[in-house]
């Protein structure tokens, strides 16, 4: 697979300068959100092993995170011990954004766990704020990063709105292909080790149901599972169902 190194160029330079009118606010065509976050004051690079916690509910919300590599799971843990996944985040995702709203005066209510081995950059919310005030292009990159999170969240809501569980699962598999897919000869492999329980926690189902539904998809030759990694043979055809 070819890896991309730059985001989308929605506007050409000319149109951009017409729109904005001053150079300091133009789209930073070469800088990425990662470059910006990395250059902030007080930033730290962190590597977190699979299944280790990045922050717990109740921890002070002081920093914003950007995923360089790997996947992060955000979840809610209830007193009954039940855990619900609210997001599985891919590379280039921002999280811990509560700190941007409340500026270290509040506590986390989500549990952030490394779903794979994860490389992160973490920046104090105050540095992010200062950088935005000094350079509009930083604000714009952050806006794009957050917009992308909003879109991801909306597609997840769409997924969860399917009432019958087999459509919900198919839609979720598609989301996972989009975010964690690695193309191969047989199709697209979701590069996460997913237990049936983990899938159930992400789409509000039970392990038993997920096991049954995956079995059905397998026997209809739509996917294969090898050591907890799912390969979808034809994700384009699957996507067509939800178009």
């Amino acid at each position: 697979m070819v890896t991309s190194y730059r985001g989308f160029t929605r506007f050409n330079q000319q149109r951009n300068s017409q729109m904005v009118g001053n150079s300091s606010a133009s789209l930073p065509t070469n800088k990425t959100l990662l470059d910006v976050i990395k250059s902030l004051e007080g930033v730290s690079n962190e590597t977190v092993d699979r299944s280790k916690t990045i922050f717990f509910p109740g921890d002070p919300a002081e920093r914003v995170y950007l995923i360089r590599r790997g996947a992060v799971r955000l979840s809610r843990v209830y007193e009954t011990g039940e855990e619900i996944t609210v997001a599985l985040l891919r590379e280039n995702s921002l999280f811990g954004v509560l700190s941007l709203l409340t500026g270290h005066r509040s506590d986390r209510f989500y549990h952030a766990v490394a779903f794979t081995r994860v490389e992160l950059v973490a920046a104090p919310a105050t540095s992010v704020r200062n950088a935005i005030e000094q350079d509009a292009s930083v604000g714009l990159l952050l806006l794009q990063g957050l917009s992308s999170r909003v879109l991801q969240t909306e597609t997840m809501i769409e997924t969860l709105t399917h009432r019958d569980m087999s459509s919900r699962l198919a839609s979720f598999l598609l989301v996972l292909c989009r975010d964690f897919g690695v193309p191969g000869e047989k199709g697209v492999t979701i590069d996460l080790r997913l237990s049936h329980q983990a899938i159930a926690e992400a789409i509000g189902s039970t392990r038993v149901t997920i096991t049954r539904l995956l079995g059905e998809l397998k026997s209809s030759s739509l996917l294969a599972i090898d050591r907890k990694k799912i390969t979808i043979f034809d994700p384009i055809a699957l996507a067509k169902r939800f178009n």
Partner: protein
Amino acid sequence: MNAERYLNHPTFGMLYLVSPASKGRDVYATLYAQKIFFLVTLQPRGATFEVIPYMDARHYSDMHLSKCKREKSSDMGVWQELFNQTFM
């Protein structure tokens, strides 16, 4: 076909190849919802992405299909199916 069947976009995740376009570029679409289109230039280290409107993507795809028809390309069926899956 020189282009990759699938590509990873830093923001939009996995894209799939819809059709070759002009000047060595290719049209890709987002896998989920199939509603965002990109003109992609593959480069030695990665790729550059330009968002294009639906009608432009469809136009490139149409042009390519006509070319395949003229040249009686053996890949015609593949491109026609991708066209149908994306635009019909």
